[in-house]
């Protein structure tokens, strides 16, 4: 009774404010409900990693089994292969694919002809809008031993044709190359913006002091984009175990599992197709925890090295 009285009393500002803006609050309902159903429920539903998920009992009534599925996954004979493949591809991405757009932005920045610069950008941004399936198709065609252009060239030089997609040795190179091909141009936009944000007066002052283009690049351009580079590097490290399922899955086949089967593709096969829900959720949680720890570590390292971090 007391509460009801309180609610109706004019002196209760929160309720008055809520009632006054009830339409605004009502607008928020679909978004809040969506996030609750598709983000929060599955987040709590991740407890099935610690349970024996039973279709008939559902998420909440299934029996607790503790860390059984984590043990099972860590003791799985291919566990090291999965983890190693994931880490190796991620490492190559960081070494080769991450710097590509930075270098591209720096080269574009040095161009003197604006029309040429625009044309290059238009062409290099295009692949970003093609789906991974289409790029997969381009790749299959290009590397096809029967009709593909690359093997035509290899044959023209008198070498043996190569079944690129059927050779585990080429898988990681294909992933890195196709990733650069698709996203190099697009990812350069952020760095181009960082470059555009450098004050022209810095360059003017450097010129007066007699600094050539190389000196300007070293002492103005590089420090100017460093914050953007660090930020994106941190985000990349936080996503070390997320490699982009769509990309890997389109090129992967059982022959290339040896070098290309990663945590995500394994989770999909075992989880969705085989129905091992609890075990693959354990993999998902493992990924989330490792990703979060890596992010914390990288953030700390970045703070002590450059004084910048995300949080």
């Amino acid at each position, binding site marked *: 009774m007391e509460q009801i009285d309180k609610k109706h009393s004019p002196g209760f500002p929160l309720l008055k*404010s809520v009632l006054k803006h009830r339409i605004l609050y009502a607008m928020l309902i679909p978004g809040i409900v*969506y996030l609750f159903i598709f983000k929060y*429920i599955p987040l709590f539903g991740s407890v099935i990693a610690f349970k024996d998920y039973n279709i008939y009992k559902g998420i909440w009534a299934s029996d607790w089994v503790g860390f059984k599925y984590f043990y099972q996954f860590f003791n799985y004979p291919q566990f090291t292969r999965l983890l190693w493949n994931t880490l190796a591809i991620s490492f190559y991405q960081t070494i080769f694919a991450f710097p590509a757009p930075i270098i591209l932005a720096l080269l574009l920045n040095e161009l003197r002809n604006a029309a040429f610069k625009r044309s290059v950008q238009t062409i290099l941004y295009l692949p970003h809008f093609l789906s991974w399936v289409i790029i997969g198709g381009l790749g299959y*065609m290009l590397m096809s031993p029967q009709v593909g252009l690359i093997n*035509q060239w290899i044959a023209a030089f008198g070498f043996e044709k190569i079944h690129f997609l059927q050779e585990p040795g080429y898988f990681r190179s294909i992933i890195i190359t196709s990733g650069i091909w698709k996203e190099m141009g697009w990812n350069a936009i952020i760095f181009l913006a960082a470059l555009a944000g450098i004050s022209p007066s810095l360059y003017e002052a450097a010129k007066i002091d007699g600094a050539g283009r190389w000196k300007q690049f070293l002492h103005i351009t590089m420090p100017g984009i460093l914050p953007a580079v660090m930020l994106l590097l941190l985000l990349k490290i936080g996503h070390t175990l997320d490699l982009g399922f769509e990309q890997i899955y389109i090129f992967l086949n059982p022959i290339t599992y040896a070098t290309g089967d990663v945590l995500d593709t394994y989770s999909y096969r075992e989880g969705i197709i085989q129905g091992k829900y609890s075990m693959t959720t354990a993999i998902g949680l493992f990924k989330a925890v490792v990703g979060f720890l890596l992010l914390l570590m990288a953030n700390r390292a970045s703070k002590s090295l450059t004084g910048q971090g995300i949080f």
Partner: protein
Amino acid sequence: MQIRRSLGEKIFDAANVIILALACVTVIIPILHVIASSLSSTNALIHAKVSIWPVDFNWSNYEAVMKNKTFWRSFSISIFVVVVGTLINMLMTIFTAYPLSKSYLRGKNAILIYIVFTMIFYPPMIPVYLVVKDIGLINTVWAMIIPVALSQFNLLICLTFFRSLPEELFEAARVDGMGEMRMVMQIAVPLSKPIMMTLGLFYAVFHWNSYATALLYITKTHLKPLQLYLYNLVAKSDMNDMLAIAAESTTQLNPQGLQMATIMVATVPIVIIYPFIQKHFIKGALIGSVKE
């Protein structure tokens, strides 16, 4: 004032132009090779004569694709998902962002934390799958729309933009007796037209290009969107699909030529809108990066 370039600079500038031109060539050649292959004769393909120019130019691969009913069914499912999905995405984004852009709305920080939390801690694939399954969305077109009804990232972009709109405009409208719903549609959205275009295109391209959601939630052939159809055609070299296409054709067709023609038809919508989207996308990518 033109400062004279040193020899070293001249060499660098020339090398720079060459490197960037080569990068462009690397992007263009695979695309030309696919176009050329799709327009060449079976004979030329088998003997690996096609590089970047069609040999024995003909449209027979395209004719076969055009006649293929499975392809067009997948195509129309994709169109449906793009149109309805993007519409729902935009409504969700706009109506969630608008109230949160009001500085006087109580509890908005709590709701923002509620939203941002899901960006840092996102659920693994399987529990999401189980929820989608429990709701009964598996093997319906809605499985490709409702589980991805809102992108928190795009929501934050939209929110940033709405915040920059002057509150006086809304005050004046309120004095005139305009309701909140009409204010959203008649003031906030028209004033944010560039960002609305950008977000709409972000969502539309996502829907058109994504195959992971369909791979997870769609197993019935007649519900497969275009990208999943292409996936089966390309990665699995689905012989049933291939035979179905070839059976409807009178001439002997090469599977790879057919694959490439199908891929080209699926790419056409993107290529047509590309000049238009490029401008908007760059703006969006920049706003997005500032937000990060």
